[in-house]
């Protein structure tokens, strides 16, 4: 196997967007007849790598070899012709057309210049037959379940391309039975000698179907390993990393644990998003939330900040229950929230750095009480200096700043409202190393000045460094609360990896 020429070989590929590196010198090798899982948290570079392989992006550096020949796919269609097909999580077919039309869209068999419907249906039946699928190919695709649509999408991709198949989170919306059906198809394709790249957040499925695993983190290749004999804990640690721990271990004042909680959650939950959980957060305390993607981390923060309405439980602030109906309500209680997705939930791109900094404070004051231009400028200048925001000008539209500086502007926006309780969702994701360290220092500093913080992060080393306590979520449930000496990346990863077999609902 090792001596055989690989089916697809990616060597030293790099890609940057607007100067921010998304992929750095990544190697990836796919053999024929192999299911190769590509793993990593959000922002690890999985989708960038896939888009380079499938022609959606052009690489900046490196080469991609298909059966030993360098390829330069111009676009997705070009890659398909070369033999690389993709099936996405949301099926990219037209559900109002028939199954047969979907299979042959853009390449219908012709007769006298018109579509030969009978021939198309006959060939469709033959194709689906090889997958053990006996369905009415003249019925609209919408009549069938997502799993069957998924198989139709795979059949189309294989029929067009036939060498490499990329499955991007194909199981995200399937139930256990449907996953089995899909995996049967995948095994069959593997037996036919296709190379299959499988992307999923569900580790159990990866263990079930994949032959080897490549882990990416922060745009870099961590390792490629065979699945057989791979320790689950080791895999989680490869995905999440464990750096930085020693540098920033914060000393925790034992007295804070005795004070009255500022924010108390009791049985707070929402069906289908977070199971009811209890949590207290005190002033001068950083509570960390750890867990894999989709474990309910962000959803918990959204319930606390009133973005989503809880359907069970209560939130109390300073002992008094508060009905969190909207972000406005949360802000009026002195809450602040830096979201994970800066672009859609955070920055107001066309507005200037100054306007973005004063934005939450102005919204809180209401439109009738505007901050004067000089107050705005003073505020903006103060935070630009205090947080070392790198911008040529405070009037520059924020969309032109780098990710790290945008994040600092968002922090400034909330600090300007002088909050009692600050929620940070992935505050250090996708930002450069310098800004990274500064934001961690800021978290510690704010905490020492008596603010209460709730921080969600995939960077466990970081989380361990600044958290007074850490709660671990898995499958939308709080599975562990770590305090004192228990706070370590090992404990977190054990909590995430334990009872791994509970993933069957996925």
């Amino acid at each position: 196997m090792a001596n055989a020429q690989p089916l697809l070989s990616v060597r030293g590929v790099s890609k940057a967007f607007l100067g921010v590196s998304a992929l750095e010198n990544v190697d990836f090798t796919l053999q024929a007849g192999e299911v190769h899982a590509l793993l990593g948290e959000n922002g690890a570079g999985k989708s960038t790598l896939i888009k380079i392989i499938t022609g959606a992006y052009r690489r900046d550096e490196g080469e991609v070899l298909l059966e030993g020949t360098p390829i330069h796919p111009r676009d997705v269609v070009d890659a398909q012709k070369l033999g690389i097909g993709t099936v996405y999580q949301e099926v990219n077919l037209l559900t109002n057309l028939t199954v047969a039309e979907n299979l042959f869209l853009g390449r219908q068999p012709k007769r006298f210049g018109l579509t030969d419907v009978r021939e198309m249906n006959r060939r469709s039946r033959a194709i689906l037959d090889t997958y053990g699928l006996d369905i009415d190919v003249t019925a609209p695709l919408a009549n069938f379940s997502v799993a069957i649509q998924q198989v139709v999408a795979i059949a189309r991709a294989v029929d067009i391309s036939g060498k490499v198949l990329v499955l991007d989170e194909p199981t995200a919306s399937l139930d256990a039975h449907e996953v089995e059906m899909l995996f049967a198809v995948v095994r069959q394709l593997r037996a036919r000698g296709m190379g299959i790249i499988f992307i999923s957040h569900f580790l159990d499925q990866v263990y079930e179907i994949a032959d080897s695993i490549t882990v990416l983190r922060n745009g870099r290749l961590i390792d490629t390993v065979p699945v057989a004999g791979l320790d689950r804990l080791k895999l989680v640690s490869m995905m999440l990393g464990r750096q930085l721990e020693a540098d920033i271990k914060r000393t925790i004042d034992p007295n804070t644990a005795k004070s009255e909680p500022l924010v108390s959650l009791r049985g707070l939950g929402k069906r289908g998003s977070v199971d009811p959980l209890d949590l207290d957060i005190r002033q001068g305390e950083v509570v960390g939330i750890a867990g894999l993607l989709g474990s309910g981390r962000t959803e918990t923060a959204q319930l606390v900040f009133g973005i989503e309405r809880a359907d069970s439980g209560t939130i109390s602030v300073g002992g008094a229950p508060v009905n969190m109906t909207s972000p406005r309500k949360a802000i009026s209680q002195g809450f602040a929230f830096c979201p994970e997705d800066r672009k859609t939930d955070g920055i107001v791109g066309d507005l200037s750095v100054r306007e973005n900094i004063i934005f939450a404070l102005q919204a809180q004051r209401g439109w009738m009480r505007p901050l004067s231009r000089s107050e705005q400028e003073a505020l903006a200048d103060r935070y630009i200096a205090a947080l070392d925001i790198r911008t040529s000008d405070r009037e520059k539209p924020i969309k032109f700043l780098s990710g790290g500086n945008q994040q600092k502007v968002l922090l400034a926006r909330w600090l300007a409202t002088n909050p009692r309780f600050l929620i940070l969702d992935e505050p250090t994701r996708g930002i450069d190393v310098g800004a990274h360290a500064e934001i961690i220092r800021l978290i510690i500093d704010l905490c020492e000045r008596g603010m209460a913080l709730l921080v969600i992060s995939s960077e466990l080393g970081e989380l361990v460094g600044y958290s007074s306590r850490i709660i671990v979520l898995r499958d939308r449930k709080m599975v562990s609360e770590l305090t004192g000496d228990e706070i370590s990346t090992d404990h977190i990863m054990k909590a995430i990896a334990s009872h791994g077999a509970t993933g069957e609902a996925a």
Partner: protein
Amino acid sequence: MAVPTIIRERTPQLIVLAVILALNAIISPGFFSIEIQNDRLYGSLIDVLNRGAPVTLLAIGMTLVIATKGIDLSVGAVMAIVGAVAASLITSGYSLPATLAGALFVGLACGIWNGALVALLDIQPIIATLILMVAGRGIAQLITEGVILTFNDKPELIFVGSGSFLSLPMPVIIWVVVAILAILVVRRSALGLLIEAIGVNRRASTLSGVNSRVILLAVYAVSGLCAATAGVIAAADIKGADANNAGLWLEMDAILAVVIGGTSLLGGRFSLVGSLMGAMIIQSLNTGILMAGFPPEFNLIIKAAIILIILIVQSPASQAAMANFRANRQTVAIKTESREHAAR
């Protein structure tokens, strides 16, 4: 300091306006002459300001709506409804203040209806306001009971359309006052910032504590009020309420005025001053075409052609081409220079 910035930012609009006015003056030599008769200013320029009142008023409300990434197609129909309401109130014997209050209230209600559909039910603005655009003229006909409701014997209401104050026609006074009020409220308060933020990124604005629903509702309500004011002027001008023709197609002129004025239909940054200039550009065109004496069937075609030229000149593609052209000319100049140097 503030005035030069406004002029610098609106240079393209000023140039277009100047060119069209100059063309008008060439076609009809007396265009710039203004004279006073019976204590009132007369002349083509005054006429442009006067006739442009409805579109100018609509454009003010439309600018705010478009800045939130919305659009209000119903303003022409709202003008018809409000005209009908004003005519039926005044002919039923109500006083002028009661009539005006009633008319403005109905316009406000129309705006709140649109705003509720957009802000509370999250219906796309183009569809939400289409409902009232289609239904509005029917409602107006119900109010006028299918006839053109005239009020030739009500000089107090007619005064709003054709009277004058300080030598200026009333419609001009009204739109200038409304425009100044709108600019002051929007730019002296934080409303302008919040409106722009909602247009750029509504979700981020809501998450930062902006009461997006209330502000959205408010801009549609303001648009309704502006349409109501325009509707009263239009009715007073013809001394009657014409449910079928009052404000017909004016929503399109208003949208055009906003776009010519430099506010993007994608929402965000907006300029009320720009929209006012846009409205004046459109009205100068209308007046110019009429005065040139073309056969009436050419009017709309000429207007469309000129607007097409304006939009092409303003389009990002031609802006980029202009920048390219300038850069090229510079390189050519440098090359020629160096060649001359080399020749020596």
